[in-house]
């Protein structure tokens, strides 16, 4: 029997998602954002989600649409402000969505830590700022650091460029961003890829995310481009 993580239906990808789940969403702005999986999550209908992502979505597409559907209870991100971030803004201003602001590098490292079995680490980032309040401080070599804890998730929704049936992923340019560390940190990482290849076509030197960090894969060969979709007035669902 052969390992085969490839699925053909988005519903199958998301079959284990539950109300109240914590879900990492890859991407930095639109680059690497798994729009089709996010739309699948709208169709799925799970509620009270905690989303961990760098941003909080644009327009009514992808993460913006999911938030617009009121499926999200809380967003943990570095930058929730954006001219097109209408759905988050509206709910935030009404006090209907929670926000935890995390410095971008601390966010990335907390996610990597979760994937690497490190429950907490010290960093100088945010020392002396409002984002250090309530955090344990410690001095190393005369310099002050704060303790930051790992950020785990039940699921990660990720967009990659190419994969084989094992889930060996490569990414395209700056669409790599948070995707690899989120694959490491989530109990189930669910990947949409532009193109599937055979295992013998995978170059073992160039794999960015090895299959051990991947649970399910689906091919979406012509994914939605957020900027274009918003310009064209797309509203999902």
């Amino acid at each position, binding site marked *: 029997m052969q390992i085969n993580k490839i699925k053909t239906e988005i519903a199958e990808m998301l079959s284990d998602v539950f109300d109240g789940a914590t879900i990492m969403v890859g991407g930095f702005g639109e680059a690497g954002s798994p729009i089709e999986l996010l739309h699948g999550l709208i169709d799925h209908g799970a509620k009270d989600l905690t989303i961990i992502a760098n941003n909080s979505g644009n327009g009514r597409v992808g993460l913006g649409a999911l938030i617009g559907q009121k499926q999200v209870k809380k967003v943990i991100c570095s930058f929730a402000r954006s001219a097109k971030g209408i759905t988050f803004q509206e709910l935030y201003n009404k006090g209907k969505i929670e926000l935890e602001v995390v410095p971008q590098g601390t966010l990335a490292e907390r996610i990597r830590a979760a994937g690497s079995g490190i429950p907490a680490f010290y960093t100088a980032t945010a020392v*002396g700022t409002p*984002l250090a309040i309530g955090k344990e401080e410690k001095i190393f070599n005369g310099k002050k650091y704060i303790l930051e804890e790992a950020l785990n998730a039940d699921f990660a929704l990720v967009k990659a460029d190419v994969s084989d049936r094992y889930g060996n992923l490569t990414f395209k340019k700056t669409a790599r961003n*948070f995707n690899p560390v989120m694959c490491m940190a989530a109990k189930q990482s669910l990947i949409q890829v532009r193109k599937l290849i055979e295992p013998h076509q995978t170059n073992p030197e160039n794999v960015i995310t090895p299959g051990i960090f991947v649970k399910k894969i689906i091919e979406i060969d012509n994914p939605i481009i957020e900027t274009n979709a918003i310009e064209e007035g797309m509203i999902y669902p």
Partner: protein
Amino acid sequence: MTKKKLTNAEKGWERGVIASKIANDLPHASYVNLGIGMPELVSQHIKDDREIIYHSENGLLGMGPTPNENEIDFDLINAGKKPVTILPGGSFCHHADSFSMIRGGHIDYCVLGAMEVSMNGDLANWSTGKGIPAVGGAMDLVAGAKNVFVMTQHLTKEGKPKLVEKCTLPLTGSGVVSRVYTDYAVIDITKEGFKVVEINENLSIEYLQTVTEGRVYQ
């Protein structure tokens, strides 16, 4: 601290002039992160006697200029989410690796905007205390880069000093700024106060003191 409009003859340096002063202070072979907005101008003023490598915190080292309209790729963007290019010898990495470069002290210089800079080098540039709080990578950059340069107008739009004794806005980092480039002066943060390295040729040190909170000296 009197607000006073400068006459035309006393006008501060143009943004391009400030940018070129920063560009001249970046040594050959530096790894540099330019903040979104005004600091992005710096790359246009680098002289041929040096090669600078630009880092964008979203996983891009060796960032090149804005692409032509027909070369735009929404998967190749900078930290401000605008389309960019990559130069030969550039590379992509994931976010944790990218911030290892920052947090680990491998970025030689970062140039950022400011709302307030205090005498001890505290920087406030991420939050007015109002609206949706959004920090991005600013706190990581000021805590991690070897040298933090600030590029800013000397006064706020309301004519208030941005160089202050103590910041009133939420901090981005504490004691992190080494040098400030404004339209009025280039100023080092020292234990004795704001040390003027260069002053706009139209201005006196006495005038600079009136538009700066905290001790200014040469």
